[in-house]
Structure formats: C-alpha cells, structure tokens
C-alpha cells in the first residue's frame, strides 16, 4: 500500500515537471517597457513678510521668515500706536490646496492687557500658482492713561494647508 503511494507521488511529480517544461517551451516573452513618475508637486510656502504700517516713532524690527515659519518683534511707544505685518503665502506646486486650520493665539494670560492683536485670514482655497496674503496687527490700547506694569505680549500660531 505504502509502495503504491510512493509510485503515485512520483508520477505526479514527473507530470508536473513535464507540464512546466512544456509551458516554458511554448511560452513567449511579452516585454512591457513603460515608466511612470509622479508629476504632482506639493509646494506651499511663505514667500514674504513685511511691515506695511508702522506708527511714527515705532519700531517694527526686521520680520523674519522661512518657508514655514514667521516671526516679528514690535516696539510701540504710546497709546494708539500700531504696527501691521503682512505675510504672503504662495502655492508654487501643481496641486490645489485648502486652508485646513488657522489658530493664532495671543498670550492673554501673561501678556499686557494693553496690547491687542488682530489678524485677517488667508484664502481658504489656494489653487496652484495662487498667492494669498494675511495681516497681523498689534495695537497699543488707545484708552491707556498710564504705563502698564506688564509691557509685552507674545503671540503664537499655526496655519495649515492641505491638499484638496
């Protein structure tokens, strides 16, 4: 009985070998030569930051920016003074982008209550090749009648664009 099994197995293996050789002989190689590449480019970045309005005597400093970061240090002198910074974001890629989140928050807890920040919002839809600008304005409260003890206030924020 055991011997019969071995013989059957041997025939089975020989059969498979013959089928494989036959397939190899009859098969024709079809060569497909093609290349694919990703042509979509994602490139949304900050291209400029500058002070566009500075009250007389105030110091807007030199706004600093990289492709993804922006910073400024403003010095105000008297009530009513204000400085406005304008930031430009450009979609230099080949894909459309949309504004996912914008979260700009002054440090109200530790900062001077006499300094106020306001900002506009960049474009919600930023198509390829498009540019958007937004501003941040800091103002020294006009109703101040004395020099505040806390004289500075920080602001931080995140703006996020994603692929549409």
């Amino acid at each position, binding site marked *: 009985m055991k011997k019969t099994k071995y013989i059957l197995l041997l025939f089975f293996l020989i059969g498979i070998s013959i089928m494989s050789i036959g397939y190899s002989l009859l098969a024709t190689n079809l060569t497909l030569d093609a290349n694919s590449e990703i042509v979509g480019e*994602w490139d949304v970045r900050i291209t400029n930051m500058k002070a566009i309005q500075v*009250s007389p*005597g105030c110091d807007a400093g030199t706004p600093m920016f990289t492709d993804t*970061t922006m910073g400024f240090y*403003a*010095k*105000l002198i008297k009530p009513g003074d204000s400085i406005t910074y304008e930031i430009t974001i450009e979609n230099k890629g080949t894909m459309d982008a949309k504004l996912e989140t914008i979260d700009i928050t002054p440090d109200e807890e530790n900062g001077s209550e006499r300094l106020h920040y306001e900002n506009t919002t960049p474009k919600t839809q930023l198509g390829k090749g498009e540019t958007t600008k937004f501003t*941040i304005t800091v103002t020294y409260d006009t109703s101040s*009648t004395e020099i505040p003890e806390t004289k500075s206030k920080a602001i931080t*924020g995140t703006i996020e664009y994603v692929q549409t």
Partner: protein
Amino acid sequence: MFKLRKNSIKILLVIFFITLLPLIPTGMSQYQQSFYLAGASSIVPQISKTMDCKANLKLEKNDSNYNIIIENRSEETYAEWEIMFYKEKQMTLTNLEETTNGWSLKGTNLKPKEPVIIPINLEITPQEDEEKYLNHYLEKFVFLSSCKIKES
C-alpha cells in the same frame, strides 16, 4: 502525508497579511504644510514728565493759550529734539505739523540748560468745558506726549 498543524496555519495567515499590508490603501495619505507663527510686542515708553532722554517737558497755560517748555538737561551737549502729541478727541493743535496719529514738533541745536518756550495753539472743544477738563487734559496731554532727544 502533509499534516498542517493549527500553529502552521496561523503562521501562514500572519505572513499572508504582512505581505498584503502595504497594499491596503490607508486613505490617510495627503499632502499638507503647516506654518508656524511666533511674535512678540513690547511697549517702550517714552512718555513721562521728565524724559529719560534728559529733557524736561512742561505744558503750562499762558493767558488764553499754552506753552510747551522744553529744557535740555545735559551739561554740555546740544540736542536735536522731537515731541509727538497723541491725537485726542476735543483737542486740536493748529500750529504744529499734523501726523497720522497726532502732531509733531521738531527742533535742533537745543542749548544745554536753556529752556525753550514754544507757544502752541491748543483748542479745546466745546469751549465751555475748558475749565472743567483743563486739568485732565493737561495731565493727559503731557502723558500722551513723547520726546526723543539725541546729541547733535
């Protein structure tokens, strides 16, 4: 002849899924770009009755009008100076140069220790409230003024 144990089946299934894992679309792939903002602002006061810049600034009433008295408190240095008056409701300065936020007054060669008196045309409206608000205005007026003085 070929006995597949339960453990072997489990191992084969694990290998199968690991092989296929990269092919499962996650749906999470999406380009994105975050921008980070960090800024700070400070009040740099240049507004007090006795200026840090070594000049005294006073406002006094002279008959129906007012005088600004500026004195260079340095011992030897002549000074170039500028006073800026913040714009206030009901208050108008008619003989000074108007700026975006108020009025500006400039001068050069201010001698040491020699006060200079500059008459200004200050109009307070309505006039009947002048007495009532005079002290308030004087106080605020000087407070809201600033002076820059530098060696010249």
